[in-house]
């Protein structure tokens, strides 16, 4: 019974990470590449990522530093620092993107660095807590977040015009298949990483696979909701197509969802906090493993300053998103995704 409960908790954590990373921009990217064949792009990307994530399950028995030590002991420190640095950059740009979107849509009077200050303080505080504590917190909040998000997507889907989803496939939509699927699968691999990071060994495969499959379902639903309301052209054009689609809904006409806007804002805030907490953990733990004697307070303060500074310095939401994509699924994927795979292969060969 306890084991079953923990599995559910892990899946909820994965789901929250997935949503927070991609809910606002992934429908735009999927529809930009695949138009009405978005579902095929997402499903294909998830299938490719599934293989990658299962591969990662073996890599992340420990942190990258520990794997490095087993494979290339001489270079383990700088490789790990590079890895932690890049993941820190990804997280910093994520903070910046979140700070911009929160400011643009809800708190336009509040300075961006204050929003980032709040996000970084809560996220790092939770991330520094023992794994079980943060897992429980995110799991608890996550149930509310996931349920609301799924309900809202169904409302969007049926409030719009489902004819917009037709035809489901045209040859023209498959023109950008390799580039689009690779881009999206890079995202899914990162999501799978969030799902399996620091999980007990036996559960990694299950939770990693569950994260990717669940992500595929949620994003097909989210993109379908956006297309139903906005049509494929607008969904591909606007950066935050999910928020824009919500603005199209006349919630006052829906008796059961009169204050859906408030629910949306609350859910969104929770989602952002949970995701930033999850993404803080990887660089934080990696640096802790490389420099075990560094005072945690200094480490904590450095990350804090870096995240807030990045959020304050990056001038626009578009630039923050471009930098986030560039460092995670763009060029940065060489270190974040390909490097651990190479390490795994070398480690396996050494074992044989």
């Amino acid at each position, binding site marked *: 019974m306890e084991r079953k409960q923990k599995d559910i908790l892990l899946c909820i954590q994965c789901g929250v990470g997935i949503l927070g990373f991609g809910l606002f921009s992934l429908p735009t990217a999927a529809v930009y590449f695949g*138009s*009405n064949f978005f579902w095929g792009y997402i499903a294909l990307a998830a299938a490719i990522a599934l293989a990658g994530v299962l591969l990662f399950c073996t890599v992340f028995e420990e942190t990258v530093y520990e794997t490095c030590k087993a494979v290339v002991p001489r270079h383990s420190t700088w490789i790990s620092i590079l890895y932690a640095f890049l993941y820190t950059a990804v997280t910093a740009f994520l903070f910046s993107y979140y700070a911009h979107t929160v400011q*643009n*849509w809800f*708190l*336009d*009077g*509040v300075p961006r660095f*204050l*929003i980032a*200050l*709040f996000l970084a*303080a*809560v996220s790092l*505080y939770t991330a520094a807590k023992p794994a079980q504590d943060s897992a429980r917190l995110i799991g608890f909040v996550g149930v509310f977040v996931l349920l609301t998000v799924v309900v809202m997507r169904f409302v969007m889907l049926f409030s719009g*015009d489902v*004819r*917009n989803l*037709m*035809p489901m496939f*045209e*040859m*023209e939509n498959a023109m950008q298949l390799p580039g689009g699927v690779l881009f999206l699968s890079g995202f899914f691999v990162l999501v799978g990483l969030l799902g399996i990071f620091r999980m007990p060994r036996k559960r990694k495969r299950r939770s990693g696979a569950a994260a990717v499959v669940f992500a595929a379902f949620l994003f097909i639903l989210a993109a379908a909701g956006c297309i139903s*309301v*906005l*049509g*494929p*052209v*607008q969904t591909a*054009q606007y950066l935050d197509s999910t928020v*824009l689609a919500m*603005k*199209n*809904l*006349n919630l006052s*006409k829906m008796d059961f969802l009169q204050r859906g806007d408030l629910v949306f804002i609350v859910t969104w805030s929770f989602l952002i906090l949970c995701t930033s907490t999850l993404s803080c953990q990887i660089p934080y733990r990696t640096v802790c493993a490389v420099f075990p004697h560094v005072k945690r307070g200094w480490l904590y303060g450095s990350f804090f300053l870096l995240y807030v500074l990045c959020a304050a310095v990056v001038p626009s939401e578009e630039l923050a998103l471009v930098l986030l994509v560039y460092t995670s699924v763009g060029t940065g994927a060489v270190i974040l995704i390909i490097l651990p795979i190479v390490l795994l292969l070398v480690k396996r060969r050494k074992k044989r």
Partner: protein
Amino acid sequence: MKKLLLFLPMFFLLGGCYPYTEVENMDILTSVYVDKTDEDIRLGGGVANVRSFSDSMAEDPVSLISAEGETLENAIQNLYQSADHELFFGALRAVVVGEGLAKDGTERFLRYLDAQPRLRRSTAVFVTDGDLEEILEYKAINDFSAGFAADSIITTLYEEKQMRYTSIGDVMYAFSCGDAGYSVPHITVENDVMRVDGYALFTGGKMVGYTNNPSLLFFTVNGAVQRHLLGATPLITRLMTRSVTPEVQNGKLHIAARFVFAAETDSGAPVSAAQCKALEKKLQAQVEAALAYSKKIGCDYLELYKSRMAQSRADFDMEQWNALLPEMTYTVQVSVRAR
């Protein structure tokens, strides 16, 4: 103590404490109007007079602000300069466009509104040929202002499936599909009564026609309802199923439309076969008239393009859809069943 310090930043975010704007220090727009005369663009709106809620020396609930300019940019600039406080678009209930600007093109103005971060995209859009300020000054009976009244009227009719509701989001959707056609409710105030008397028809953001043919709803609203008077018997028809199939062959467009209606009476009395037959004939004529008008003015206000896009977006992108309309042929099949 450390924990307390960590959560201190939260206080900055509570309820927009910083930098807040008191509601009295905002000009809350409930409606916006815009029109074009021979020389100028006229722009204005109804601003909620928040003091009148609490003040027993009751002022009008809405004050009007207006501005003029040679260009849209000038008019907008002048409107901001004529406002007492910062303009707030988040409570906007209606956008009323005069026929002068509607015929000249509404796209730039609506895109300007859409770019306002607080604006709800579900805000209703109307067209009128009447005096815009008269409409804005309309004393609503049960509503707060003309903007709210117009929104309430169209919302009620839409919920009863008797009228089409066109929002800024709907218009933006049409813009995203190139020169796609769309319809906007046309309002008027006559004898102190505000009512929707038909639809202004648009292609590519410009008004190209007007219709009060109710069969527009059969193409655009699921479950559309229409009231009839056959002899002395009031009847209601409700759209049950709709099938619109466009076919493009050799550059010629053919529309095959099929509608099934259910007929009933208010009293619950049965509807006879003869009445169904008469209704079929009437509805068939209505639908054919709507298609004929679409063909005549070359405007796809019946949104046939949505059915075409659902068949093949790639083909639709290649076709000059509006150029196909004047040569369009159609077959209409209407059947009415007693409920």
